[in-house]
C-alpha cells in the first residue's frame, strides 16, 4: 500500500470507456457503484461531447449487495431499448470484481439481442492503456473477417481514439498525407468505427498503427492472420515522416506488384504542404536559422507515454539539436521498449521509469533542464520549480484540448511541436536573461500560489472559497504568467551612439529590460550619459 495523490493512467474501466466512446453503435456498461460514473465526465467535459458518451453505469449499491440483487440484466435491456447498440461491452469495477459474480450468466439472462462481451479487465492488473488496447485487440479478433483486398491501394489507421493525445489532429494529418499519395483509407479504428468497419479491416493493403499504446497489437494480429503489412512507426518529426512515407509506399507497392496494380509514387514533397507548393515543413530551415542558435546547449527532459516520449526525444535531439538531460515513461509495461528506442539518446542513469509523479518532480528539480516535455503532472511540477514545460502526453488538462489544428504526427506535426518548443523556451529564456542582468528595477510579482480554485463562476461573482469540485475541464488552477512592470521613469540618462549600437545586439525581447536596468545603474551612479563604457560596466556590475 502506498499514499497516492495523482495518477498518470486512468483505470481499466476508463480505458474501456475510451474504446466504446470512440466507436459507433457500441456501448459500455460498467457493473460498478455510482461514483465510478465519474469517468463519463472526463469525456463530456474534456472532449465537450455534443452527445451522450456510449457508457452507462449499472449501479451496484450496498442495498443490492445485502439483498443479493444484480441490476445488470435490467440495465442491459434499458441500454438496448434506448441506444440500440450492436455490441455491449460489460466490465466490472475494482470493487465488484471482488464479488466473484458470474457476469456472463447475468448478461445472458438479460435476453438482449445484440452482442454482449463481458470483458475480463482486472483493474488491479490493468490500467487505462492496457485495458483499452486489450479490448480493442479482442474486438478486432472477434470481428475482422477474411475478404478480398480493395482494388485501389488502401490502408487502415489503427489507434486514434477518444481522449487520445491530439488524436483528432493526428488523424487529419495522416489523412492529408494519404490523400496526397492517392491512397484510400479503408477503416479508421477505433475512432468512428462501427462493428461492421472492424469486419472490413482485412480488405486494406496495409495497416498504419502509429501509437505504441493503442492499435499496435491489433495491427500485428491483422498481419499474422490476414497478411496485412503493419507499419508501426510513429511519424513524429520530419526525418521520421520521410522514412515513414518511404516505408508506406514500399509496403503498398509490394501489394501492388502482387496484384499487378499500378505502383504508388511519392509526389514532390511540396505536395504535402497545406497549399501544395511550399515546404512540407518549416522545421529543417528553422532549425538552422540564427535565431535557433540560442537553443544550442539548452537541455530538455522528456517524460510521458511511450510513443510521445520516444518521438519527442528524437525530434529535439535530431532535428532541433538540443541535448537531452533525461527521459522516461510512466507506462511501466513499455519501459523496456522506450529504453531500447532511446539507446544513444539517454544513458541508463538518465532514464526513468516510474508511475509516481513525485519521483519525476525530484528528477526535474535536480536536473533543472531548460525545457521539460511532460504531462499535466510535469507541467505543475515545472511551475513549482520554475521550469519551462510543454505538454506532450496524457494525462491532459482542458487547455490541451484546443480548437485549432495541432497534430503531433507528420510534417504538420513537426511544425506544431517546434513552435511549441520555441514559444515555451523563448519565454523562459527571456526570464533567464532578465536574471542574468539582475532583476533590479523589475517587479516580479511572486509566482501565484496554486490554489485549488474552481472555474470562476461565469457571473463573475466571487467563487465560493470552499469550492473546488469542478469537472476536469474546470480546474483552471493557474493564473497567467505575471507580467513584469517597468521601473518608474525618472530623468533618463542619455544614450550615446556606441552604447545604443551595443544595445541593439541584445535580443529584442529583452532589450527593453536591459535598457531599463542599465539606466537604473547609470542613475544610481549619477551618470548623465550612457556610453559603451558605462554599458559594459553595467553589464559587469549586474553580473553579465
Amino acid at each position, binding site marked *: *500500500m502506498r499514499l497516492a495523490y*495523482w495518477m498518470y493512467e486512468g483505470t481499466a474501466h476508463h480505458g474501456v470507456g475510451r474504446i466504446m466512446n*470512440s466507436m459507433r453503435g457500441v456501448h459500455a456498461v460498467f457493473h460498478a457503484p455510482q461514483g*465510478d460514473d*465519474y469517468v463519463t465526465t472526463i469525456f463530456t467535459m474534456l472532449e465537450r461531447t455534443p452527445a451522450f458518451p456510449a457508457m452507462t453505469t449499472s*449501479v451496484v449499491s450496498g442495498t443490492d449487495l445485502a439483498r443479493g440483487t444484480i441490476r445488470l440484466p435490467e440495465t442491459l435491456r434499458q441500454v438496448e431499448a434506448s441506444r440500440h447498440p450492436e455490441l455491449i461491452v460489460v466490465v466490472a469495477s475494482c470493487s465488484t470484481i471482488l464479488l466473484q459474480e458470474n457476469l456472463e450468466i447475468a448478461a445472458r439472462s438479460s435476453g438482449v439481442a445484440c452482442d454482449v462481451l463481458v470483458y475480463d479487465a482486472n483493474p*488491479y492488473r490493468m490500467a487505462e492503456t492496457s485495458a483499452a488496447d486489450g479490448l480493442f485487440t479482442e474486438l478486432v479478433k472477434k470481428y475482422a473477417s477474411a475478404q478480398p483486398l480493395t482494388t485501389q491501394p488502401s490502408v487502415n489507421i489503427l489507434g486514434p481514439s*477518444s481522449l487520445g493525445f491530439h488524436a483528432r489532429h493526428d488523424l487529419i494529418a495522416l489523412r492529408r498525407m494519404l490523400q496526397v499519395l492517392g491512397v484510400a483509407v479503408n477503416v479508421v479504428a477505433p475512432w468512428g468505427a462501427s462493428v461492421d468497419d472492424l469486419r472490413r479491416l482485412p480488405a486494406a493493403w496495409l495497416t498504419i498503427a502509429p501509437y505504441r499504446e493503442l492499435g499496435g497489437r491489433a495491427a500485428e494480429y491483422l498481419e499474422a492472420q490476414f497478411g496485412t503489412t503493419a507499419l508501426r512507426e510513429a511519424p513524429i518529426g520530419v526525418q521520421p515522416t520521410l522514412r515513414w512515407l518511404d516505408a508506406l509506399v514500399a509496403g503498398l507497392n509490394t501489394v501492388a506488384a502482387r496484384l499487378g496494380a499500378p505502383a504508388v509514387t511519392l509526389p514532390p514533397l511540396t505536395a504535402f504542404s497545406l497549399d501544395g507548393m511550399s515546404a512540407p515543413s518549416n522545421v529543417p530551415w528553422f532549425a538552422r536559422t540564427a535565431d535557433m542558435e540560442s537553443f544550442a546547449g539548452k537541455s530538455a527532459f522528456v517524460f510521458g507515454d511511450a510513443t510521445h516520449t520516444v518521438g519527442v526525444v528524437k525530434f529535439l535531439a535530431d532535428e532541433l539539436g538540443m541535448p537531452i538531460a533525461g527521459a522516461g515513461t510512466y507506462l511501466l509495461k513499455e519501459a523496456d521498449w522506450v529504453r531500447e528506442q532511446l539507446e544513444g539518446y539517454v544513458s541508463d542513469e538518465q532514464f526513468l521509469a516510474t508511475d509516481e509523479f513525485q519521483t519525476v518532480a525530484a528528477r526535474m528539480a535536480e536536473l533543472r533542464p531548460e525545457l521539460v516535455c511532460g504531462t499535466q503532472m510535469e507541467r505543475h511540477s515545472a511551475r513549482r520549480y520554475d521550469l519551462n514545460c510543454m505538454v506532450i502526453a496524457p494525462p491532459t488538462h482542458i487547455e490541451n484540448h484546443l480548437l485549432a489544428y495541432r497534430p503531433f504526427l507528420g510534417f504538420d506535426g513537426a511544425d506544431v511541436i517546434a513552435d511549441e518548443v520555441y514559444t515555451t523556451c523563448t519565454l523562459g529564456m527571456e526570464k533567464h536573461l532578465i536574471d542574468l542582468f539582475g532583476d533590479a528595477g523589475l517587479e516580479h510579482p511572486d509566482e501565484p500560489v496554486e490554489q485549488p480554485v*474552481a472555474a470562476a463562476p461565469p457571473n463573475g461573482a466571487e467563487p465560493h472559497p470552499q469550492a473546488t469540485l*469542478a469537472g476536469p475541464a474546470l480546474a483552471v488552477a493557474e493564473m497567467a504568467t505575471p507580467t513584469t512592470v517597468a521601473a518608474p521613469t525618472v530623468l533618463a540618462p542619455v544614450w550615446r551612439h556606441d552604447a545604443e549600437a551595443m544595445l541593439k545586439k541584445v535580443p529584442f525581447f529583452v532589450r527593453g529590460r536591459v535598457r531599463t536596468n542599465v539606466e537604473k545603474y547609470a542613475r544610481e551612479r549619477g551618470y548623465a550619459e550612457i556610453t559603451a563604457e558605462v554599458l559594459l560596466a553595467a553589464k559587469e556590475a549586474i553580473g553579465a
Partner: protein
Amino acid sequence: MPPKASFTREDGLYHSFCGLVSVGWLYQKIKDSFFLILGTHTCAHLLQNTLGVMIFARPRFAVSLLEEGDLSSSQPQIADQIDEIKREHRPSVIFLLSSCTPEVMKVEFEGLAHSVSTPEVPVLFVPASGLDYTFAQSEDSVLQALLPFCPVAPPDDRRVVFLGSVNDAIADDFALEAARLGIPVAGFLPANHFHELPPIGPGTVIAPLQPFLPKVANQLVNERECRVLSSLFPFGPDGCRAFWEDLAAEFGLTVDLSEREAAAWERISAHTELLRGKKVFFAADTLLELPLARFLRAAGAEVLECSTPYINRRFHSRELKALEGVRLVEQANFERQLRSIADEQADLVISNIITANPLIGRGVVAKWGTEFIFSPIHGWAGVNTLVGLFTRALRRHAQLDPLGLDPVWTAGVMPSAPREVIPLQRQ
C-alpha cells in the same frame, strides 16, 4: 407528524458521483484537517478528475492505495501512512474515509481508525463509499464524526449552532443577521478548525444551512437533546424569510420579515421577469434540488419535475410542503428523464456536470447543478447570485447566434456520435 408528501422513486439509473467528492470542499473548510481515503486507483482517479485536476498546492487529501497484494488481508496497515501524513501536513484531525473496495472486503473501519487514533491527532472514520453515499451526503458523515468533539453545553446555554459547511463570508453574514435579530450564536458545525467546534447541549437550537445533513441532525437530537429548526432552507427571499422568522421564534422572538422579503424580490425583479412561466426541469444530483426548485417556483417558474437522489420526509418536510403539486422523483431513471424533457419541452434543465454538454448538444438550455454547491447562494446576501445562476444560462443562450441543430457544427467532434442528432427540443 411529517406530511405525506408524494414522490415517486425510480431505479436510480442516473449519472452521479460518490460521497468522496465532498472532500473537495471539506478539506478546505476544515483548515487543519487531512482526508485519507482507503481506496483504489479508481478513487484516486475520481478525485483527480472531479476535484479540479492537479491541484498542486499539496492537497490535504490522499488515497491510501489498495493494490492487488493488499486484497487478501482483512485489516490493511495504514500506520505508516498516518505517520507520513502527520509528518508532512501536521493536521489536527484525520478523517479516514471508506470506499467501495474495502467495504466489499469487509474492512472493519471503526477499529482501523481507532488503532491509529491518538488523543493529539484523532483519526475519525467517515463512511463515504459509493455503495451507499452520493455526492454531498458524506458531509453528513463527516459532521457525525465530529460531533463527539463538540463540547457539551449546559442546558441553560440557549444559543443557535448553524449546521453545514459554508464559507467565511456566508458564515459572517449569518452571524451578523442573527445578532441583528437578537439571536445568540454559539457557532458553526463544522468550524474552520478542529478545536473551534461549538458547544452543543439541550439548550442548543440547530439551524441547518444545507439540506443534505439529515443524519447528523437526527444524531444531534438523540445524543445532545437539542432542537433542530424545521423550516425552509435559507435560499431565496422566501426561504430566508421563513428561516429567520422560524429561528427567531425558537428564541421566543417574533419578527416579521415580510418587507425584507418583498424588497429582496424587488431587487431581483429583472431576473424573475425572465423566469416567469419558464418550464424548468431538475435532473441534478447535488441534493440541493428541493430548496432550489421551491425558490424557482416562488420566483414564478413552472417546475416540471424535481428529481433528487434522496428525499427525507422529516428533514425536508417544509420544503416538501412548499413543493406540493410538483412532480418529485427520488433516484430517477435518466432515460425516462430525457423522454420527459422532450415531451414537456423544458426551457431550462438543471443537470449535473456529466450530462450538461450532451444535453446542450440536443438543443436544451442546461445548467450545471454543481455550480450551486460552489456559489455563495445562502442567505439574503446570496439571493442575487442564486437567481443569477438560473437566468445566466437562459440569457447567454438567447444572446448567441442560433445554431439550430445543424450537425455541421459538431461534425467530427465526437467519434462515437450518432450521425443523426436526436433533438430534445422542437425547433
